[in-house]
């Protein structure tokens, strides 16, 4: 029997990155050790911080970056990115043994989820072959970075909603030179982060075919 259930955390206040990372790691450990069969989904916002993958090129942190900025090296793939209030961050701690043990499939599924979310707001977006993430034309609206251990995932994706995109100018986002970022409010200024949250929740639930349960 497959255990497709997931715990959902959707806090209303902005949380520090490192705090949520610990929560994710805890649930990943639970699944790995068989302590719990519940997967874990977190939907929320972070205070300003920068994260880089273990294999990332440090050159993508530009000299203009504040020396005191919070920079975290974490166990995900991909290059540097930036989180801040106004950007919706979604973490998925899923057991791919329940789905498909295929990280390419997983990344493409996440892209599909983001495209579906944006479609709800009448925003056309697409994949760009070789550049994981979701794009509106030549501008990047959502970024993906995941880690995986024993086919149990960690980290996830972020969608820019009404955040200050200037922070991205201190880095080379995803290591792509001349990468221009965009956000949902560039297309429709009336959309609030709370509107996106509910849609994200439902689409994830549908796509990964699980029920949300309480802890």
């Amino acid at each position, binding site marked *: 029997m497959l255990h497709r259930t997931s715990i959902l955390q959707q806090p209303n206040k902005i949380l520090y990155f490192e705090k949520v990372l610990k929560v994710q790691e805890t649930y990943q450990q639970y699944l790995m050790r068989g302590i719990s069969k519940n997967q874990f989904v977190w939907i929320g916002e972070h205070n300003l911080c920068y994260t880089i993958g273990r294999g990332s090129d440090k050159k993508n942190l530009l000299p203009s970056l504040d020396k005191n900025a919070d920079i975290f090296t974490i166990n995900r793939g991909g290059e540097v990115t930036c989180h801040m209030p106004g950007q919706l961050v979604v973490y998925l701690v899923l057991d791919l043994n329940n789905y498909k043990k295929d990280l390419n499939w997983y990344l493409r599924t996440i892209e599909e989820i983001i495209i579906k979310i944006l479609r709800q707001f009448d925003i056309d977006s697409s994949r760009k072959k070789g550049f994981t993430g979701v794009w509106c034309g030549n501008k990047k609206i959502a970024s993906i*970075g995941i*880690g*995986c251990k024993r086919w149990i995932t960690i980290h996830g994706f972020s969608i820019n909603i009404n955040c200050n995109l200037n922070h991205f100018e201190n880095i080379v986002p995803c290591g792509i030179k001349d990468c221009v970022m965009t956000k949902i409010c560039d297309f429709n200024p009336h959309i609030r982060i709370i509107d996106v949250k509910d849609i994200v929740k439902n689409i994830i639930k549908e796509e990964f075919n699980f029920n949300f349960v309480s802890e």
Partner: protein
Amino acid sequence: MSHEIFMPALSSTMTEGKIVEWLKNPGDKVERGESVLVVESDKADMDVESFQDGYLAAVLMPAGSTAPVGETIGIIVESENEIESVQAQNNNISTAKDKPKKIEVNDEVEIQITKKAVSVSSPIEKEKTKEKKIEVNASTSNSSSRVVASPKAKKIASQMGIDLSKVNGSGPHGRIQVDDVMKAKGQPVSVPWVGEGNTSASIINVNSNKSVQSNNPGNSFGNPGETIQFNTLQKAVNKNMESSLSVPCFRVGYSIDTDKLDSFYKTVKQNGVTMTAILVKAVANALKNHPQVNSSYSEDGISYPEEINVAVAVAMEDGGLITPVLKDPNKTDLFELSREWKDLVKRSRAKQLEPEEYSTGTFTLSNLGMFGVDRFDAILPPGTGAILAIAASKPTVVAGENGSISIKKVMQVNLTADHRVIYGADGAAFLKDLANLIENHPETLVT
């Protein structure tokens, strides 16, 4: 004992992966389940874990480098005193590997073979050569001829022990491509099947050749005149076999041409793929379209399992047999499946399997091909509907429909099924699809 760490397949489409970081240094202690390194593909990082307790003895591919799926990238040993010898064996190789890497910036690589040729002359290195059949030809070439080859061709050549300076390149400006290396590998065999009579399509694992060629006496658990009590496992097997006597079974057989399967096996073997994994994958694939053959009898009626779990019979050295299960092979790619299988076999011999790892099969395979048998039939395990007996693949004179005569390698398979749930036509249709898959599309089994 040493265990190899392979470049894992993070997805079915992945051909190579980048090593982001080694989390352990050579000499470090590692525990079973502990992360040893991180591999990246696209935007996803995967922690690669150790399958056993021991020590990381050698790192064969440094952080930042890229290796094809299935390539050995590190070695773990069980005891501390083995570290030194493994490191000594691999020192030359790892430095040799580092050097060409620097010039791998553009697509075309120029390599000098002499360096490797010299290193082969040390006695330890020779030992290694014998074992892995690497660089056998390279050692005979002392010329410093420059060879232009694609990185992949170069890698495969070094794995297969082919001297690139003797390979004719078919690419632009005589550049050596993967195909050229493959062709060169096949050259010495002028009559393709003669030398291969024993290495049938049904080789179950690496050790099988040994059991075929040596004149080992057959199994015996006692001395003449003695009566030896059954061990627990033997008793359990006896009970299972006896319960089949109350099941109305029938048998249906099929001859399958394995020429394509054999050549497919040859190309994927270097990536650690086992014949068992291929056969399991083929069977699971065919079962997907024949759920009836995956069903079983129960008091309430025909029971259709949620998953296709293929069990494979493995004989135990001290008597009895066990049937480790490969769960839902359709969801796993061939490389991962081969690794899972190797791990299951190793652990079943060490009697470390969990009950759910040998009792959840919905269909069983029994393969005696490595002994050269031309046919046999198997006894149906309780709780399942069918078992497939696989014999050796042997060169056979085949008459074609148009009256032509050819020699093909043919393998006989024999299905034993519970007639209460599986009828003759169900079994026959399943075998027909299985044969079609193996004969015509073995390459689709990769994913």
